[in-house]
């Protein structure tokens, strides 16, 4: 496995001052591919060395910052629009992930790049919430009948909604993992502990961490892997200091809602790849995994979580990403659903890409 420069600078931003022109060249490229250019810019600003860097480096850092500032404003506005759209239904949405970080000014928000906004409502409110959003300017993304069924029958979220006016994407969830998944989550407990804030909810700190961990380690979308790990690292650092009894409650809660395994991965990889200051006894209190399985996951994730850039890849990287992709589907659905689904997906991908290139 190759050492990744971005990782080193995320851990110790002040060391960036010593980097050569070619190292900066590589660092900017890795950061772009990991959706972390703006985060890098924020960290470099924070240690106060921006002005000592070359003009070329500064302009890329600033460009990243401009983009993420715009996104922050846009996400903030989006949360207001969503609240307003749901006001007549009396449904108060729970903002998840990026939306929640911005809504509550939490540290992962700084320099973050967003792709969509995620909200969660109780399953019984799902239909009403969707209808209210559609009445207020969101539209359903055009999907095939199969895809509609896939989302509505098997998934933890509805097909993405798109704001007609702003072209933003909204994912409407009713739980945080597919109901067909091997891990069963006690969603009601998440709702019970959510914190109300100005007409909407965000998950309680421990649940927010668990959700972030579940999303990264069970949902299989590793294209934002490094960015999601950076989110987790920031949450661990922040809540670890701010909330009394955070670590003890976190472990207890993970057991209660059924998410001990993703928490283990989150703690392990955040510590391993980003040197997050997590007390040793936290790791020891989490269930022991078979050494073989741990080794296997180390092999896979320590590759797949790195930026998707040629400089961070070795000959096993593609394999690792593929195995984890299959694993995420295996975790999502039982075999009798999974096999036909993957065959269909592979067929469609092949067929569609042929259509794209034919002129």
């Amino acid at each position, binding site marked *: 496995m190759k050492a990744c420069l971005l990782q080193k600078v995320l851990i110790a931003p002040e060391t960036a001052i010593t980097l*050569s*022109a*070619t190292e*900066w*060249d590589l660092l900017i*490229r890795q950061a*772009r*591919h990991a959706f972390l250019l703006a985060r890098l810019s924020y960290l470099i600003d924070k240690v106060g060395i921006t002005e000592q860097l*070359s*003009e*070329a*480096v*500064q*302009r*890329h850092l*600033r*460009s*990243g910052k*401009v*983009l993420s*500032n*715009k996104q922050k*404003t846009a996400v903030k506005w989006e949360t207001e629009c969503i609240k307003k759209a749901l006001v007549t239904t009396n449904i108060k949405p729970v903002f998840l992930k990026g939306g929640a970080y911005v809504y509550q000014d939490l540290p992962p928000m700084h320099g973050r790049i967003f792709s969509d906004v995620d909200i969660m409502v109780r399953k019984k409110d799902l239909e009403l919430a969707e209808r209210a959003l559609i009445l207020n300017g969101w539209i359903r993304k055009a999907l095939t009948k199969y895809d509609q069924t896939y989302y509505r029958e098997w998934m933890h979220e509805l097909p993405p909604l798109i704001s007609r006016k702003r072209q933003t994407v909204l994912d409407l969830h009713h739980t945080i993992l597919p109901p067909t998944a091997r891990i069963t989550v006690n969603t009601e407990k998440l709702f019970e502990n959510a914190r109300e804030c100005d007409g909407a909810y965000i998950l309680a700190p421990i649940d927010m961490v668990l959700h972030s961990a579940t999303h990264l380690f069970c949902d299989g979308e590793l294209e934002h892997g490094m960015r999601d790990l950076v989110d987790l690292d920031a949450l661990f650092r922040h809540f670890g200091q701010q909330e009394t009894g955070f670590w003890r409650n976190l472990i207890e809660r993970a057991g209660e809602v059924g998410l001990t395994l993703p928490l283990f991965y989150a703690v392990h990889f955040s510590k391993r790849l980003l040197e997050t200051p997590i007390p040793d006894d936290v790791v020891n209190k989490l269930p022991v995994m078979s050494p073989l399985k741990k080794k296997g996951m180390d092999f896979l994730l320590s590759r797949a979580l790195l930026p998707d*850039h*040629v400089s961070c890849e070795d000959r096993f990287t593609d394999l690792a990403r593929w195995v984890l992709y299959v694993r995420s589907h295996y975790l999502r659905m039982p075999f009798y659903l999974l096999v036909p689904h993957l065959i269909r997906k592979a067929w469609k991908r092949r067929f569609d890409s042929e259509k*794209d*290139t034919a*002129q």
Partner: protein
Amino acid sequence: MLISDLSLDEIFQRLKRSELRFQAGIYTICVYSPYKVVAEGLKNLYQDYHLVDLDTFCDFYLAVKSPGLVRRWFRPQVVFSHDGFSPFKPLPADHAFALFEWAFNWCVGNHAHNFLLLHAAVVEKNGKALVLPAPPGSGKSTLSASLVAHGWRLLSDELTIIDPDTLLAVPFPRPVSLKNYSIDVISVRFPDMYIGRKSYDTTKGTVAHMRAPTDSVFRGSERVPIRWIVFPKYEAGSETKFETKEKGQTLIETIENSFNYDLLGRVGFDVLTQVIQDANCYRFQYSNIDEALQLFDSIAEGEQ
């Protein structure tokens, strides 16, 4: 060392090894391509650009390559990728050089949000910049190519880059893109200007590029204040008309012709209003290039 110091074969060898790095304005680019037409295009249109060492910071890594093995031989196609990321669908292989030009613009347009970026040509005379924003089909390229061939300095024919800290226009000198009829108009009116080979049947019709004058390339780091903002409109057979444009209207239409005004938020508004406040704004209708050149010369002289 300049690109003209390399032979075609040397350029091609460097291209194939990802070792062709050169500077255009403030940007340094590294190019990879296994296609000889790209080497030819660079040789003919980029002769005055400075090569840079392999250990310098590079802004963009641009590859113009085949999308896969099959498409290398069967109805060959090319695709552009920026450091491994391909935003567009493949094009026929004949368009490789035109694709390189679009790709380079794409790189700046998508990674230079530290600047305000307008979809506008920008040229300079006597230390003052003339910005020509206009939607496609307005005759903007013909006008800017003519002004440049006539002695105005080219900053860019496509991207007006404004530094929000100083409000100065930042040069990004590149070959001037000419489309359809304007290729013949320019080559007849300015036979001394070098125009590269044509790409037929692109999404923009027939496209060819005019080499940027040596002086414009060499002065790629000289930033200039914006003095005039002129919205051109080519209208066959029409009289030359030049009239003051209201500043409010200028602001609205300039925003419509910007790439990242919305991303810059408050800064975008402050910068653009100040630039427009400080500039003289006009709308301009023309059909006769010589009258147009005379008019712009006299405006530039009148400022002296």
